[in-house]
């Protein structure tokens, strides 16, 4: 009798495996959370050392125009002005998004509203494929096609913001296009039918109904593309010229946050000011990536309310 009682009261094999499985899968999830926290912790600790250990003024860092951490400036402080890189990054990001947006929206509209059959058959697989092309390949093409082209047409060395813009435009175009196409697809069919039934032409339907309804999604796609452009390192580094100067014009060699990082980290000694200053640039990148995330969330929430 006791034996049966004991057997009934103890936890079964299934319960134990349930608990174990649930625990292990929970651990995996927690691991991801730990990784994210660790990334922020490490990068912030390193990046803030410039300001707390080396006593660089935050404002000097953000607005200084000379980047030469190994040399002391007129005021006796090392020259760690990150403004050229910050301007370079923002300029390239904004310009490439500005060029890519009309193309992306146009292509997505073409795929969904004008020639859905051919669009789905040719354009969609190709854009999806291009999303997966490695960024170094874009950089290489930039180096062997875009840079000579820019040098030929606009003068200068060919390296600079303009070349970076062209490369990033082609790079984020597939991403923005396929995200925009997905949003257009999720606009209910009866919106279009209602508009056409009122006697609107296809163009009127597209720009007064479909694009309006899809605006939050399209904005998300653009911000997403900008986040990708802002964080892209190698493709930009290969064509931007890597001179830590404020860009005079679009064809003068300049640099971005990511390009200075990829070049510098290996050539500086851990813990030195030169190195800490680079980590501060990484921290700026991290904060900007968070900022893009917040914008996407805000757009998403605003879109829901409507």
């Amino acid at each position, binding site marked *: 009798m006791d034996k049966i009682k004991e057997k009934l009261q103890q936890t079964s094999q299934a319960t134990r495996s349930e608990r174990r499985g649930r625990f292990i899968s929970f651990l995996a999830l927690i691991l991801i959370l730990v990784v994210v926290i660790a990334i922020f912790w490490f990068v912030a600790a390193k990046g803030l050392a410039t300001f707390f250990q080396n006593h660089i003024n935050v404002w000097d860092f953000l607005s200084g125009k000379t980047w030469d951490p190994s040399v002391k400036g007129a005021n006796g402080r090392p020259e760690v002005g990150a403004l050229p890189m910050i301007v370079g990054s923002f300029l390239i990001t904004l310009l490439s998004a500005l060029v890519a947006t009309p193309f992306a929206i146009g292509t997505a509209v073409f795929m969904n509203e004008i020639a859905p059959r051919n669009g789905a058959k040719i354009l969609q697989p190709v854009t999806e494929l291009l999303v997966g092309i490695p960024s170094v390949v874009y950089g290489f093409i930039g180096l062997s096609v875009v840079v000579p082209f820019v040098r030929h047409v606009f003068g200068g060395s060919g390296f600079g913001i303009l070349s970076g813009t062209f490369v990033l435009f082609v790079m984020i175009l597939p991403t923005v296009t396929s995200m925009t196409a997905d949003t257009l697809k999720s606009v209910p069919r009866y919106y279009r039918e209602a508009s056409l039934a009122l006697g609107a032409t296809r163009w009127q339907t597209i720009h007064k109904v479909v694009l309006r309804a899809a605006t939050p999604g399209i904005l998300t796609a653009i911000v997403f593309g900008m986040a990708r452009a802002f*964080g892209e390192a190698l493709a930009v580094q290969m064509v931007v010229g890597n001179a830590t100067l404020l860009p005079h014009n679009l064809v003068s060699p300049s640099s971005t946050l990511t390009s200075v990082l990829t070049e510098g980290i290996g050539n500086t000694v851990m813990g030195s000011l030169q190195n800490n200053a680079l980590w501060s640039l990484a921290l700026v990148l991290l904060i900007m990536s968070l900022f893009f995330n917040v914008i996407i969330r805000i757009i998403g929430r605003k879109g829901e309310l409507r």
Partner: protein
Amino acid sequence: MNAKTADKIATAVFYAIAGSVILILAFLLGYILISGFPKLTWQFLTTPAKAFTAGGGIGIQLFNSFYLLLLAMLISFPIALGAGIYLNEYAKQNWLTTIIRTAIEILSSLPSVVVGLFGFLLFVVHMKMGFSILSGALALTFFNLPLLTRSIEGSLAAIPNLQREAGLALGLSRWETVTHVILPAAVPSILTGVILSAGRVFGEAAALIYTSGQSAPALNFGDWNPFNISSPLNPMRPAETLAVHIWKINSEGIMPDASAVSAGSSAVLVLAVLLFNFLARWLGRRLYHRLTSATN
């Protein structure tokens, strides 16, 4: 201008935009494949690179890329699978779940160079692992985890609740239902997600230049003991991958035929991504038919 003319003009504009985008994309693919194709010989694909003279291959880099991909997948798949299962099958709607979902989203949007720098700091410097395949594989894991987790969660979410109810009705526990009913049904779409993410990992370079390093020491392909330094399997050796190789020879190389080698390497990378794409589609469809006895 009346509405009909406007409509016609707009349609023409859309055709022009789509046409120019198709042209750009076709030029891009065509340029990579055509300029790289003459380079793709067996000799190019198997011989080691030469730093100062022309005629080097990409043999070691190609091997490194695949080995690194394999290790990164071996590490990240179980974690992503566990996380995906918990998120879809167990997680309740509470603050912790919200935080974790936000964290995954943030991780997926981090620039890969930041992930690489973190890997450099943690593994290469603090843990003293040096520039090694293992450091690179771990950095790639961080890079890969958020997307893989979301794709696995999506695959599980696509399995109808009827299946879960059927499992529970048979007296299975939740975990048994997941492992015996839900996972087998989700295998095709999980596999598609894994292969697509493999394509992304294969071409990643920014996360690797400071973790797995930028040098490719000579390997002895007759020695498969992972503890020997010249063995291809040794996870503690520095390993330049194909994508890093392209960046390296273009930005600071002194190789006389750098642009031909990069063209060939780019073609290999793009062909690999193409292959991963087709494989994902084909295998997904095939496995779906096999596992669900669906007919064509």
